[in-house]
């Protein structure tokens, strides 16, 4: 029976890899997730026949847990709006990390209780055995590390640590993206405190290896969870996608390590593949923002930097929807640069309607997507695809930047930092060096924005004060609606 179970795991691992491969191309992406899904079902069903499972109660608990949690996740995943996808990914990722940590906890507590049991056995056995044999026996099983074996214990504890950090960190990321948490600092000198907590966590991880009681292990898990919270707290919203991707990679790694502890090849392979893929994805994202990963994690972007960067000269000039629509309606080329504001306002459908109207008037329209526009790379692409915008209208930053000086009107919808020229020409700005959409080169720029507030980085945007820039103060969806009304009458 065990051979069949192991074969199912093997097939599942193959399906996961093929699935991920499929997901890396738009044409095969949907097949990819289905393959991976079949692998998951296969592995889950096979596990019910795993030889290590016993006790009828445990089977019932497993079925109950899968039914309740799976049902809830299915329901919440189906009804969440597309704009809230990033935080859902963060949430589900955190759950995976938590599961890996919990597996580590079960195995560690089990080891501790076995140590307890063997000492009791020794007392009973002392009457029959020679003292020498008892000492030998005790020396072999006196702490977690020696009972589990060094390799299993080290990877099991490391996996638990990483999983616990990914769990609490992802929950903070979820709370921040969902607008439930706005604080960037819990304690004074947060970074110093974080360092202290990190050192203490590692110390207790090492102690857990040498312990024979559960107290140390409990402290270890509490510290790891606290460190996850502290690590994610100072990170500003603009950097969240990178951090979620990092936690995703960490969860994969934790799953791989716990897989080794359990001797489960499917977990080792799937976890490690995700760990490696996630690390690469994290690097790609950090690179797109031109910020080294260490900078993302330790700088507290958008917290204390509000007053950094020089103040712009001049003032913002407002424009009415009528004038803006006329400008767009008689242009040769219009480029639309969407950002998170478009997602929040759910404006993508209205924007596409607007674009279709412009196309009827023979205006060439393109979408310019900054690599980190929105809350995740590709977030805008997903939203525009949802609204029915064809791929060939959507341009990457590199492709479109050369076109701005030939563009009559750029419409910036709910984007801010990714079009801020300070990133190019103000070395004192905290976002200096980040590649941007060079919209200021266009003849005219219309910025649709709800108010005069700053972007997620907390930096004043010099673009808004430029001579060729006009502000259309409105919610993205309402503004697009008004523009449509005017255009229809033109």
């Amino acid at each position, binding site marked *: 029976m065990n051979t069949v179970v192991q074969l199912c795991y093997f097939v599942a691992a193959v399906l996961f890899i093929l699935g991920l491969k499929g997901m890396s191309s738009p044409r095969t992406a949907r097949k990819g997730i289905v393959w991976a899904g079949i692998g*998951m079902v296969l592995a889950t069903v096979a596990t019910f026949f795993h030889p290590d499972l016993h006790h009828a109660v445990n089977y019932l608990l497993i079925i109950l847990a899968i039914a309740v949690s799976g049902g809830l996740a299915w329901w919440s995943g189906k009804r969440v709006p597309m704009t809230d996808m990033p935080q859902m990914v963060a949430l589900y990722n955190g*759950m995976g990390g938590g599961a890996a940590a919990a597996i580590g906890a079960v195995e560690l507590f089990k080891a501790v209780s076995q140590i307890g049991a063997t000492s009791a056995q020794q007392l009973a056995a002392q009457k029959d055995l020679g003292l020498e044999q008892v000492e030998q026996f005790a020396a072999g099983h006196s702490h977690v590390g020696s009972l589990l074996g060094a390799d299993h214990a080290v990877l099991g504890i490391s996996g638990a640590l990483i999983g616990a950090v990914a*769990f609490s960190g992802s929950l903070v990321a979820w709370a921040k993206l969902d607008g439930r948490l706005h604080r960037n600092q819990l304690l004074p000198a947060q970074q110093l405190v974080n360092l202290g907590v990190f050192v203490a966590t590692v110390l207790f991880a090492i102690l857990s290896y040498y312990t024979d009681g559960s107290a140390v292990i409990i402290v270890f898990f509490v510290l790891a969870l606290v460190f996850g919270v502290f690590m994610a707290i100072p990170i500003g919203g603009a950097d969240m996608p990178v951090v979620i991707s990092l936690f995703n990679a960490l969860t*994969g790694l934790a799953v791989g390590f716990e897989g080794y502890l359990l001797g489960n090849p499917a977990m080792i392979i799937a976890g490690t593949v995700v760990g490696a893929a996630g690390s690469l994805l994290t690097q790609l994202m950090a690179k797109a923002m031109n910020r080294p990963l260490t900078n993302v994690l330790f700088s507290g972007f958008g917290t204390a930097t509000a007053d950094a960067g020089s103040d712009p000269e001049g003032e913002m000039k407002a424009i009415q929807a009528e004038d803006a629509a006329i400008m767009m309606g008689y242009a040769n080329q219009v480029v639309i640069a969407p950002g998170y504001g478009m997602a929040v306002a759910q404006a993508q459908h209205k924007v596409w309607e607007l674009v279709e109207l412009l196309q009827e008037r023979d205006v060439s329209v393109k979408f310019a997507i900054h690599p980190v526009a929105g809350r995740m790379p*590709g977030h805008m692409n997903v939203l525009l695809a949802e609204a029915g915008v064809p791929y060939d209208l959507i341009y990457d930053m590199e492709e479109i930047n050369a076109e701005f000086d030939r563009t009559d009107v750029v419409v910036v919808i709910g984007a801010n930092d990714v079009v801020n020229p300070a990133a190019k020409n103000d070395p004192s700005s905290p976002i200096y060096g980040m590649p941007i959409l060079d919209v200021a080169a266009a003849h005219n720029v219309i910025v649709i924005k709800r108010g005069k507030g700053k972007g997620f980085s907390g930096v004043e945007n010099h673009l808004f004060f430029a001579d060729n820039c006009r502000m259309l103060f409105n919610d993205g969806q309402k503004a697009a609606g008004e523009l449509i009304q005017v255009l229809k009458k033109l």
Partner: protein
Amino acid sequence: MIEGLIALWIFMLAAFTGYEVISRVPVILHTPLMSGSNFVHGIVLVGAMVALGEASGATEQLIGFIAVILAAGNAVGGYVVTERMLEMFKTKDEQNKKGGQE
């Protein structure tokens, strides 16, 4: 069972596989792919089931139960969310076909 050096080989090969699979992904698929890999580490469900299945004693059962709850959320939620994102990457033909049937 997989032990010691054999596991090291597996870790190494799996890491390269993950790296290779991702390295030529267009930007538009970054979010679905992050979500998809998030689903794949939902395989932790298998480990959680074993941990709960071999648990003895209330503490182990409780933690194992939490593990299965969390892991099932990861696997099911990850699948649903990814599937919904990728639903939008249908080609024009597929969309028309579906529209025709409805």
